């Protein structure tokens, strides 16, 4: 999944660099990638979403 996310980021970066008129698509890719990154972090921490320390 991390590989997929880097492909999305690469695609968005490429659009910003070489196809600036596709700003709307590039930004959507950015938002999707943000959501996927957050999801993957939560998948990795779902047994203890909060830091495992004393409160």
């Amino acid at each position: 999944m991390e590989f997929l996310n880097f492909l999305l980021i690469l695609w968005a970066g490429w659009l910003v660099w070489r196809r600036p008129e596709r700003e709307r698509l590039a930004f959507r890719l950015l938002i999707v990638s943000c959501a996927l990154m957050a999801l993957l972090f939560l998948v990795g921490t779902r047994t203890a979403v909060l830091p495992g320390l004393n409160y």
Partner: protein
Amino acid sequence: MTRDRLLAVLTGMVIVLVAGPLGLAVFVLGFGTGDSPCILCWAQRTGMALVALVGLFVIRYGPRPRYLGTAVLLGVWGLWMAVRHSASHVARDVGQGFSIAILGAHTYIWSWVVYLTVLAVLGALIALQREEPPATPSAAAAAAAAGGAPGRAGRAAMALFVVVIAANAVQAFASTGPPPFLGQSDPVRFSFNPKHWVWSLEEWRSVPISWRGSWSVAPPDLSALDPDPAKGPLAGLPALPVRRWLRVGAPLTGVPSDLAWDPVAGRFLVVTDRHEVLVLGSTLARPIHRVVLDAEFSLDLSPLAGAAFLGDTLAVLATNKSYVLLRADSLPAPEAEWRVFRSTHGGVRELRRARFATVRARQMFVMSLAYDQVADELVTVSVPSPRQRRLVVSRFARGDLLLSSEFIPALAPGLRFAGPERTLADYVVTGATIADSLLYAISAAHSTLLVLDPAARVVRAAYAVPGLTRPTGLAARAGELYVLQADGRVAVIERPRAPLAPPAPSRCPLPSPRDC
């Protein structure tokens, strides 16, 4: 700062971010040394790539609100990821980290630095931006359609970004695989050789979602326990009848939660769940000293649940393993009394307030405290919880009040469990005392008295004590045991002398032999 200068600074920061953390991570740490990120590291690295991407958006299209807002959100989320990830490791012992350390700090710590820097730079750039008159609608539309023309540095930043992200994609493919494979919590080192690639679906496994994981431990609740000895985990226990009943005659403001006996001075020590500490005469009626500890404005004291005499010193213990040492003093300082006591009749001062640290009993509450005069050690017995199903005896040296030993007791020959699923963790020890080198522990669950041999680390004997209702404390007085109950009554029973048989053969006390 003019807009051009601001964009130049931003371009420089993007290049630093891409060439620094992102480029260093993939080319030097990954391809160079074989470092492979865990699933949390991957998310943090991805977040940095997204921050850099937002920077490219600003370089290309200008500082639009949605870009700046996205950058702030990414910075805050990245900081949260750094906190959450570091929490798994920062409390461990010196030098005990995870994966590679850079300049003495591990990568999850550097993540703090990166995201804090991102937020600081972002705030500074926004604050330093010169207010300019808004563009005409036609000019703004044209700029939005085509995007700005970045300078040479901007184009270099974009090219560098594409190269570094492509390299990260290569490493991510080798380390984590194509979807639906994903990163691992404990990854193997990176290799370009496909034979060494490990692609895993382990993190997709179905597990309960929890806020705090193993730290979600509910405080002990005695009212929910079954007092019936016949339903306890040990089968065929002999009964130990109550010889007589006494009552704590002194007025109490809370529920009595432990009892101790001082054979030298002939006095009792009683504590309550409202942080009340009483020294009573030998009839349990006449108060000699009474203080109520201030539980909130220093070390946090949960309800008191343990009491012991250490010679002249009174030791009281809260369920969260915070303890307070007190001593009778005819001339305590009034200001010190006000600081540590909610109320006092005078004559007592606080010596020390600190916390016991345990290993096997970590993340478990305790409801008992005993003092081993021969070994000069304090002893606690843990209260099992649904997450930590263990009965742990912890011993603390009187000299420094640090952990000296811990054990999970085994059963001596002659004792057997009532079923394959039963364990000593079915008991909830609420009172303990030491006499003749034996540790006596009373369990509120199944009203059972356990007799442990600390030297052999076994339960030598166990007795059903019918008629008890929510026992909360235990004291040894001569040849008898005094069992304090939550209702203030005290059951007096014979103190059994367990046979000191040779130690049981070593066996694994944990649920699974492979844990040993």
